[in-house]
């Protein structure tokens, strides 16, 4: 016991720091075997796989792959998890280990800096550490375990310390050691290079404040030298991600200048909505704090936010901290430091406010005129570390001043001495002031209680990050890992929600499979949902739901899908998988079912038999793939590649998409926000009109989507139509459950029109009110079927104080098409008539459309399109007479109410003329060596052929052919196939040859990794020699 006391008395400072570092243990305490995971918190359930992924600049796992250059920066972060995994094996312990490691990095790095800055007072150092590591800003960092934020926050104190020590001419090995540590810790900031730049901004501001105040060349020279040395070390150690990232951003063929160019949404304005200076100065700028439920006023995401907004103690403390910061700056006993904290505060607040007025004008100006500045799209999150550092620094400085120079209070606040009585003055002792400081530090820990107690992870809520993963998930993981040769292909998840929300608590924006395995997965992405492959995936899901098994199976072949994972534990509005899928071979793990397609028919690298030029618009590629599968590939007719001279031009045939007038009209209507002009048009859905243009005359085979044709009165066996105004009959030649193909027709060059007569029934029987339709009435209204001449209509008179309506019920609806709701009305008196559409299912309302009709006193037409949420549901159509505050109320006449489905089936034409030079179809064998390298052999290549590689297109994918004699040739004719994939046309090759497909920017990672490794080894060697030399 005595020994323990002795140890404590010697190391009590370290004990306090270690205790602070162990904060993450509290997060798990008493919560069972949970893991903190979900949404942006991607804690890997397979840490080794996640680490290994970061050795490659292409991630082939998610949705056909993407450039992963910046993410390689997470190598060190995930290395810590791998280390923990090898030590503990238990995922909870691994996560705890990783979190404690990073918490300790923050605590100890800030302590090291504080020890240098406030060497005379441990309480000042503690104040700095506590305010730097426990503040409101950092809540979000920990909530999502943001690698870039943590890296930046951990590296800032070390970087500053290195610079200060260099300035103070400390030992070189100390400087190098600190620089190396800062470089390694900072590496994670590369995931979002904006954070990486923020680090240098802070160092630059330090140098600026020193140079301005000292105003001597020696300081300038010394600091410049130090900053340069530190920067070079950081850049060299981080070369492994800087080189490929710089290549992908600065030298990309995409010509990247702003954030939208790399497919990210610029959410600057929405994130800056609540970043007023008042909030920023109190570190309360996180957008999710302000999202509230409109009905209850309760926070939507951050349950504890109300305490900070409404409780006066919290409000007082939030203002009190900044008040003390200002006192610290005003005392200015250490002017140089005060200037540094001051400038950090100003710059941090200015940038942190983003586009919020009044400083937002300047921020927007910078965004417009400085290239890449739009990459700072989350300003508060990126720049607030400047402010937290300023706050911690100023408070540390204040504490040091008052504790080390109690007597100096006379100097700083002479009036205090004159006012206070000797008795009160006698209370101002160092001890009492220390107690006050300790209370202040404790108060801050209480103020940051969500961080301390783990409330930041929202325990007990539907969106909690505390997740207990069911065991069958890990059984599935083992199954997938144990048979990598059986399942090297892609897995597509179902249901198709962009956010996966599981009944047992996990919520994620990426597929859960990417956390678990190294299998390539396809799913509905939240980011870039309109990229080419996500659009095909979206249509694949829709085809599945429609029961179009032939088309969905063909798409599966093109996308190399071998498994459909039906997640029975995912809360979703999507309908169940159709029975035809459930008849496929199945492997079940708890609520998860893996349905297998015939894997022998699919391959990621294949050689198509045919190639077509398509005039497709966004989202039509799925029809091509659904129709032809992997026997053909398409190239966009406007692709510049077709203008080049190569063998493709003699092998290509046209594939024509027609414009469906009904589909086009509904899509145009729904894309307009102000649509009164479009709404007063009368629309006739009794005919489906298809227009198209032909460049190459010849024989074409028309095909029509099969879905629900009979419900429009169409007999697929023979369709009566008009072709360019001439009556004709399209006779079926073949069909399946997805498409009907008709006998070929000869088409000349030019524009053509095909009209198909439809029997598109009104889903509201007797909507013309000639006989009484079925509708629900409100008791307060007066409803009457009135008659003028031969015409009958519905009259609604409302003299009550609330809405009165006639409610028409339509159930069930066809969820796979849009609807046209059309009526005639006459607003006789009172308020504007209203038309409301409610889409609901048994459990909940899904979508509401409420249209105010223009107040027009004569009969007028009004029509709207409605795109329902794709789920089993019903409609309620309400014709309203709103209340008016006078005796006469509102009188509205309604007539000819119709609700019709939009006929959106696509018609397309495939040329069946033989190409000048048909393609050879060789056999391809290949191996995926890594995400960036595929090697294989092509056999039986008897002529020109195409190698299609079903991974997202990038000009950086290269193919090299090795001849039997060892000579090598790099294929140059590389083009985009099927709107997303890579393809090469290869001619003049031997019958059998080897090939290699690789992602070229990997070389930058390899070079960079070499430089990084050499730098680290060099620095370690130098430090070892230096330490040894000193010992001698």
């Amino acid at each position, binding site marked *: 016991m005595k020994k323990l006391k002795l140890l404590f008395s010697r190391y009590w400072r370290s004990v306090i720091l270690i205790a602070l570092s162990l904060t993450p243990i509290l997060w798990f305490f008493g919560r069972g075997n949970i893991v903190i995971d979900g949404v942006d918190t991607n804690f890997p359930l397979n840490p080794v796989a996640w680490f290994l992924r970061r050795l490659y600049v292409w991630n082939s796992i998610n949705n056909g792959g993407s450039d992963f250059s910046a993410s390689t920066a997470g190598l060190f972060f995930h290395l810590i998890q791998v280390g923990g995994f090898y030590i503990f094996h238990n995922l909870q312990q691994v996560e705890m280990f990783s979190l404690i490691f990073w918490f300790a990095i923050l605590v100890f790095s800030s302590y090291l800096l504080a020890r240098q800055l406030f060497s005379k007072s441990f309480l000042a150092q503690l104040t700095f550490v506590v305010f730097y590591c426990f503040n409101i800003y950092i809540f979000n960092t920990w909530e999502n375990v943001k690698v870039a934020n943590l890296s930046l926050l951990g590296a800032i104190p070390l970087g500053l310390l290195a610079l200060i020590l260099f300035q103070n001419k400390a030992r070189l090995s100390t400087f190098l050691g600190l620089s190396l540590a800062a470089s390694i810790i900072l590496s994670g900031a590369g995931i979002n290079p904006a954070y990486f730049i923020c680090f240098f901004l802070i160092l630059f501001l330090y140098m600026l*404040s020193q140079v*301005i*105040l000292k*105003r001597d060349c020696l300081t300038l020279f010394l600091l410049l030298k130090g900053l340069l040395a530190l920067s070079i070390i950081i850049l060299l150690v981080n070369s492994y991600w800087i080189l490929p990232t710089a290549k992908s951003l600065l030298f990309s063929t995409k010509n990247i200048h702003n954030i939208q160019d790399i497919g990210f949404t610029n959410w600057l304005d929405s994130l800056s909505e609540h970043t*007023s*200076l*008042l909030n920023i*100065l109190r570190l309360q700028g996180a957008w999710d704090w302000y999202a509230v439920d409109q009905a209850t006023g309760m926070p939507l995401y951050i349950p504890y936010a109300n305490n900070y907004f409404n409780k*006066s103690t919290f*409000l*007082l403390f939030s*203002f009190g901290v*900044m*008040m003390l910061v*200002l*006192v610290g*700056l*005003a005392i*200015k006993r250490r*002017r140089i430091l*005060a*200037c540094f904290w*001051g*400038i950090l*505060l*100003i710059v941090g*607040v200015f940038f942190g406010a983003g586009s919020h007025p*009044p400083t937002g004008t300047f921020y927007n100006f910078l965004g417009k005129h400085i290239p890449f500045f739009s990459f700072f799209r989350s300003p508060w999150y990126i720049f607030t570390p400047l402010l937290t550092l300023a706050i911690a620094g100023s408070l540390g400085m204040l504490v040091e001043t008052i504790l080390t120079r109690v007597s100096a209070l006379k100097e700083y606040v002479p*009036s205090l001495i*004159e*006012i*206070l*009585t000797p008795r*009160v003055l006698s209370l101002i002792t160092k001890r009492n002031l220390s107690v006050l400081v300790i209370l202040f530090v404790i108060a801050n820990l209480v103020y940051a209680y969500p961080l301390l107690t783990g409330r930041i992870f929202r325990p007990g809520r539907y969106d909690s990050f505390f997740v207990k993963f069911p065991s069958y998930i890990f059984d599935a993981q083992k199954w997938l890992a144990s048979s990598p040769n059986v399942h090297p292909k892609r897995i597509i998840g179902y249901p198709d929600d962009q956010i996966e929300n599981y009944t047992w608590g996990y919520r994620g924006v990426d597929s859960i499979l990417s956390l678990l395995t190294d299998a390539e997965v396809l799913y509905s992405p939240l980011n870039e949902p309109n990229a080419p492959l996500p659009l095909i995936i979206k249509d694949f899901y829709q085809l599945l739901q429609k029961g179009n098994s032939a088309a969905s199976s063909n798409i599966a072949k093109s996308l190399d899908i071998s498994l459909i994972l039906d997640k029975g534990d995912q809360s979703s509005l999507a309908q169940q998988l159709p029975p035809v899928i459930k008849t496929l071979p199945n492997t079940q793990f708890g609520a998860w079912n893996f349905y297998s397609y015939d894997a022998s028919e699919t391959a990621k690298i294949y050689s198509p038999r045919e190639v077509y030029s398509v005039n497709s618009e966004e989202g039509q590629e799925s029809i091509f793939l659904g129709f032809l599968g992997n026997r053909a590939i398409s190239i966009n007719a406007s692709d510049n590649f077709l203008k080049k001279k190569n063998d493709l031009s003699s092998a290509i045939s046209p594939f024509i998409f027609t414009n469906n007038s009904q589909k086009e009209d509904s899509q145009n209507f729904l894309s307009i926000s102000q649509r009164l002009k479009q709404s007063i048009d009368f629309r006739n859905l009794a005919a489906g009109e298809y227009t198209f243009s032909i460049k190459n005359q010849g024989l074409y085979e028309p095909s029509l989507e099969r879905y629900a044709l009979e419900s429009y009165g169409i007999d697929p066996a023979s369709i009566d139509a008009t072709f360019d105004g001439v009556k004709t009959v399209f006779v079926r030649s073949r069909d399946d459950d997805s498409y009907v193909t008709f006998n070929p027709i000869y088409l000349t060059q030019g524009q053509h029109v095909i009209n198909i007569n439809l029997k598109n029934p009104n889903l509201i029987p007797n909507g013309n009110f000639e006989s009484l339709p079925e509708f629900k009435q409100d008791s307060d209204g007066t409803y009457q079927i009135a008659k003028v001449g031969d015409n009958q209509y519905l009259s609604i008179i409302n003299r009550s104080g609330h809405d009165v309506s006639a409610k028409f019920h339509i159930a069930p609806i066809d969820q796979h098409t849009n609807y046209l709701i059309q009526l005639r009305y006459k607003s006789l008196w009172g308020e504007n008539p209203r038309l409301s559409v409610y889409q609901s299912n048994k459990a909940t309302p899904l979508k509401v459309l409420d249209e105010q009709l223009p107040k027009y006193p004569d009969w007028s037409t009004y029509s709207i399109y409605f795109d329902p949420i794709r789920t089993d549901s019903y409609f309620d159509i309400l014709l309203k007479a709103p209340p008016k505050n006078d005796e006469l109320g509102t009188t509205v006449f309604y007539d000819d109410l119709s609700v019709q489905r939009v006929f959106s089936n696509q018609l397309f034409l495939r040329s069946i003329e033989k190409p000048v030079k048909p393609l050879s179809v060789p056999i391809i064998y290949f191996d995926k060596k890594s995400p960036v390298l595929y090697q294989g052999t092509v056999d039986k290549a008897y002529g020109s052929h195409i190698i299609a590689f079903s991974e997202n297109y990038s000009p950086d994918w290269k193919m090299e052919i090795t001849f039997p004699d060892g000579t090598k040739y790099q294929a140059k004719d590389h083009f985009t196939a099927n709107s997303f994939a890579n393809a090469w046309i290869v001619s003049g090759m031997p019958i059998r040859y080897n090939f290699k497909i690789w992602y070229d920017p990997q070389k930058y990672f390899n070079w960079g990794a070499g430089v990084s490794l050499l730098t680290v080894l060099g620095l370690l060697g130098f430090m070892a020699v230096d330490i040894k030399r000193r010992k001698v």
Partner: protein
Amino acid sequence: MKQNLINYLHRKRGTIAKWSSDHLIELFVFNIFLMLLIMLHSAGYFQPYLPLTLNLIFFVSLVFAIVFLDCRSKTIFFIAMLFWIFAMILRIANLEIWAERTAIYTYEAICVGVLLLFLERTPILS
């Protein structure tokens, strides 16, 4: 303590009176400038090219206070604190918009205060 405070204020009164007589002209010019700016603001002068907002007037008045009234960083930070306390009161009273506006004045004062921290060491102000 109350007596101490009264005595203190009594003594300070003399100091303030001396300072005022020493800066009489500067105070006069400062006030004239301020009044002029407020009048120009109310009449909408220079709009739309340079809107004379109250923010701008406050900022200019801080700068004038340095030039004419020899204000130094301590005073400016004191002004920032006053506005910050005022913002706090408004925020606690749930007058969020007013509190936001007041916080803008605090920020402006902090900017000027930090600038002075630098300038006080230069020949311009030292």
